[in-house]
């Protein structure tokens, strides 16, 4: 038995990283609007000026984190593997999680696609057991579809005894 678990085989496609960056951009825009409001209120009520700097710093930090840093880390951590008897997913930002789902436990598999994902021809796939739901995000649509089909076949083959 080897001590170090071997790295999982598949990664999220590169396009996924782009989409995450895009989400980060939206986040930043939202924060910017909020902070804009704060700055306006500060100006209007003549609150102390350090609030300006804080507001601007917040926008910069959010932009750096949610556009540049976080998607990168998340993309690096995301790995998955669908084997005959189980699905293994690795995810996480600061805390890396590795989840093992036996094929027998899988109840159903869904793919979903919002407008942005559709534009990039990507889809999320979510795997539900009786108690939990696990998502593998940002797969190429055709891959996601074939993976969904594959999981549902494997899950059907696996004998159920709940």
């Amino acid at each position, binding site marked *: 038995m080897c001590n170090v678990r071997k790295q999982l085989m598949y990664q999220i496609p590169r396009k996924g990283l782009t989409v995450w960056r895009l989400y980060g951009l939206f986040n930043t825009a939202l924060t910017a609007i909020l902070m804009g409001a704060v700055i306006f209120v500060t100006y209007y009520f003549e609150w102390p000026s350090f609030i300006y700097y804080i507001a601007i710093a917040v926008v910069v930090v959010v932009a750096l984190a949610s556009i540049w840093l976080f998607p990168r880390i998340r993309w690096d951590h995301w790995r998955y593997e669908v084997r*005959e*008897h189980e699905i293994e997913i690795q995810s996480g930002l600061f*805390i890396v999680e*590795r989840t*093992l789902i*036996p094929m027998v436990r899988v109840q159903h598999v869904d793919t979903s696609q919002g407008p942005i994902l559709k534009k990039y021809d990507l889809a999320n796939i979510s795997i539900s057991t*009786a*108690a*939990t739901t696990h998502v593998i995000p940002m797969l190429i649509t055709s891959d996601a579809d074939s993976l969904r089909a594959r999981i549902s076949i494997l899950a059907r083959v696996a004998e159920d005894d709940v």
Partner: protein
Amino acid sequence: MMSDRYKLHLVSAVVDFVKGLRELILPFLIIFFANGFSVTFNPGDSNFWSTLIPLGIFLLIIVLRLINGFLKWWTYVYWFEEKELRVEYGLFVKKKRYIPFDRIQSFNYKEGIFHRLFGLVQVMVETAGSTNGKPEVILTAITKEAANQIELVTRKSKEQAELQADDLEVEELAEPTARVIHKMNTKSLLILATTSSSMGVVVAGVAAVLSQFAELIPFERIFEELSSFIKFGFIAISLAVFMTFLVTWLVAVIITFINYYNFTVVEEDDRLTITRGLLEKKKVTIPLNRIQAIKVVENPLRQIFGFAAVAVESASGGFGGEEKKITLFPLIKKKDLMNPMQELFPHFVWQQTLTKPPKKAKSFFYRLDFIWLLPVVALGSYFWFPYGLLSILVIIPVIALGLWQFKTAGFAINGNQLTFCYRIFSRVTFMVEKKRIQALEARQSYFQKRRELTTVEVTVMSGLTGAAAKVPNLENANAEEIMKWFEKSSS
């Protein structure tokens, strides 16, 4: 085929109505709080309309509820046909639900005060598919004979089906033997009340109530008069403290008696039947094969005296979502635990040696707490300067609890059984079989990675959301071992 149609008892309309009222109490109170209790019926008063409008709305809702409850009773029918329990109700929107007998997992019963006045019972029909936490069918109030009849019809039909399935089986359907596993007497109920962790909550409640009365008591005058008799003042205070505890204890005892009076666990025909309750009697049946995991919980007080509570996570929840965890033994001496559990769950191993987190993990159990503790202490010290510094002392119990959690944590693998032992405040021993595990998760933060530690979490099915147990900060190799063990299940 029997196709007599049965109706519910009229009381069910009342029960539904009262249940509806209970849901209304909270919004009612909120609105009156918001109004600052300025209730007035004087048309000239400025508060007149803000009283009348909500009151009117509430009255309207109450009347609607009453009509609704009555209509439901009026239209509700159930009958047996083609090996199915069939239920129909609704005036404008007719709802029909047909449940095949062999899909019925269990019947659960509940007798509220209204039920008991008329010798009625509420029946909840549980099926394997009702995973959304709700029973498939609820018959709000029927007579006990009718309830027995439903169970009888179902059982007969099931047995017939089984007989047809294997003709070889000779007719040896002897009456299933019922075996009392556990029964609580008054003494253990008292201990249960005294050691329950809800005592703390009750203390807070009593203190709050007493502090309300405190405004009525002219403390200042009393203290002035008594200040000369310091000794007497001391007695008065200790008497007050004592009284608080006495009242608290009494409340805890009363609550415990209402909930757990006559708590009995019976094993019969591979299913467990749990009966309990003083005013409201509840009877839950769980098929043994629906039990997903066993949880032995010892709160600190009970741990000292060698007591524990045992709960099971069941796939089909007892009374809807909130009671998915079913208590098997509310209180039992730990050394008396082994025998009945061994009998009930022969495939579980009860004595085992735990693998503990390594020494280097020790600090991980409390150091995260500093992150929220530091600002609290800093702010406390800053704003209440000299005395605020005392808040530093909070760190001591936090570290102590962390060390205690470290000492408790551990896991064991025995064949197909995984045991997790951990503590948040109470010590929990969580036992699960491989085939019941829905998902296994290993988690590692950046700092854990540097020290080669991993947190492992296991999830089983229980009610709607599932139940999870986790052991933090295990050695990497140990976490790996658990993952490997789980993977092997199929390969």
